[in-house]
């Protein structure tokens, strides 16, 4: 039990650390680790292991609880499917940008820039926006 608890802890820690990185591949690996951690936790929730639970409840003593295993199995399948989709999305992102980095929201940067411009009144607002190649690029349809 203690081994499983420590394992879940390590998986969660590593997962969260990787999630906070800025490259997509690490984020995906982080999510996968978090999923493993959650599954280990689910297995632990069923209490100590025992004989295979075959038949209908109620079970005698010394039989392991089948429900968390069923839950973990379902969760594994779901995580697997979503991870596959995420990898495909990351590949598409790499094809489009040739870069693995997570990008900022363009519109957010534009709004932040408008706020900066408001403070500096000498600058022409529209001209200031046009100066930023990255931003205008996004807005010509």
């Amino acid at each position, binding site marked *: 039990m203690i081994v499983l608890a420590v394992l879940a802890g390590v998986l969660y820690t590593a997962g969260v650390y990787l999630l906070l990185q800025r490259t997509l591949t690490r984020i995906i690996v982080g999510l996968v680790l978090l*999923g493993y951690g959650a599954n280990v*936790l*689910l297995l632990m929730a069923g209490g100590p292991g025992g004989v295979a639970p075959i038949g209908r409840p109620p079970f005698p003593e010394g039989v392991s609880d089948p429900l968390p295993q069923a839950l973990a199995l379902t*969760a594994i399948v779901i995580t697997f499917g*979503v991870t596959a989709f995420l990898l495909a*999305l990351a590949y598409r992102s790499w094809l489009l940008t040739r870069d693995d980095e997570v990008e900022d929201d363009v519109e*957010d940067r534009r709004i932040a820039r408008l706020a900066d411009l408001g403070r500096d009144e000498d600058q022409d607002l529209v001209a200031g926006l046009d100066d930023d190649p990255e931003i205008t690029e996004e807005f010509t349809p």
Partner: protein
Amino acid sequence: MRLLLPLPLVLPLAAAGLSLALHGHRLAQRAVSLVTITSVVVISAVLLARVEQDGPTAVDVGAWGAPVGITLVLDLFAAMMLLVSAAMVLVVLVYAIGSPRTSDQARYFHPVYLVLAAGVSGSFLTGDLFNLFVAFEIMLTASYVLITLGGSHAQVRSGMTYVVISLVASMLFLTGVAFVYAATGTVNLAHLAGRVAELPDGIRLALALLFLVVFGIKAAIFPLFFWLPDAYPTAPTPVTAIFAGLLTKVGVYAIFRTQTLVFPGTRISTVLLVVACTTMLVGVLGAIAQNDVKRILSFHIVSQIGYMILGLGFFTVAGVAGAIFYIVHHIVVKTTLFLVGGLVEHHAGTGALDRVGGLVRHAPVLAPLFLLPALSLAGLPPFSGFVAKLALVQAGLADEHYVAVGISLLVSILTLFSMTKIWGAVFWGEAEDPVHDPDEKRPLPRLMVAPTVALVLVSLAIAGGAGPVWRLSERAAAGLLDARPYVEAVLG
């Protein structure tokens, strides 16, 4: 009744498979989707009528008894949500068929859209925590595909944020399920209602907060809302409209369900009130700063979610009933506004406020279609938003939450301000740098206008029939706050 109950979940899933097999046959796919969703709407209406008469009903799928097997439960609140969401799915489907941008990608749009409908129905129907997780995943996985359908750079960028945030929430959800099972030995919601009450206060509060965070991410409450205004606007209009109308509200539904059924009486209602007020304020202030129709509307979703949580935070029948009425009104009005936003984009070629103008002259049909729901959103009488906000304000005053009521009124004024900002920029004046020549005739597809008109009429009908809808909401709220009939229906 027992046979009908699983159908809103099963029918769309089966139809999705059929639709996938028909890929390439656009007309057949459309027919399958339309027939399926229409029958789901009819079934939901029948279910609502039955539940309204007989009270909560439960079905054990696969004949495994209640605490262990898969249980589907329908009470009045769930039945109302089921009907409203099915109706929105149908209206947006018609709009999507009429919209030129999605029909290009229609081969995969229809199956995925049906899966989304199944996931939404499943979330409302399910009677246990783990199947709520599964239904959420069905819905979210479909939404990942829909939001990135087309695969453009902007879509992949914002879709990535959306997928990662949703997945983190899902992992937290799974962790929460594991904790709940370890503490109580069950995941059946009705069973949990009794078992969780026996836990020590501290553990109960911790679990309640964990689930508030999980569903808070999905419902986009402060401070967990930041992904929403980034993710929604890049998708095609029908997709954004259905997401705006339904997905966050499924999160709100889950918050209502868990906090009232599983964790009643924890000291969480103060947290809910504070969160609700900040959500309202931050959402509306964010909307004021934006400069694009869809982004403004996206920030308003966040702000409106605050009102729903506010009603729950009061924890009285009047407050929760106000919130339920608000959810029904919001789903209809918000979907309408996004559909109109899509029509504006279709007509003007962009949703950026400074590049659109004078639509009162160029597309006069859009003006009332935008104005009526916009005023309703701000809460002006005699629209449905006024009734919903009045109910919440009265509930708040009755319970002496003066600060919260004051903030909600202030937010209403700010909402009105930002709606007039869209109105002034889009419908009055003239665009400085229009994408198309404004005098050029650009007819709006009839299949896009008709569903929008229908939704505006529905929202007016909610205002006109406020009495019956309010009585229904009140009974649904009473059913949420007194869990005994629900528990009896499930555990017998």
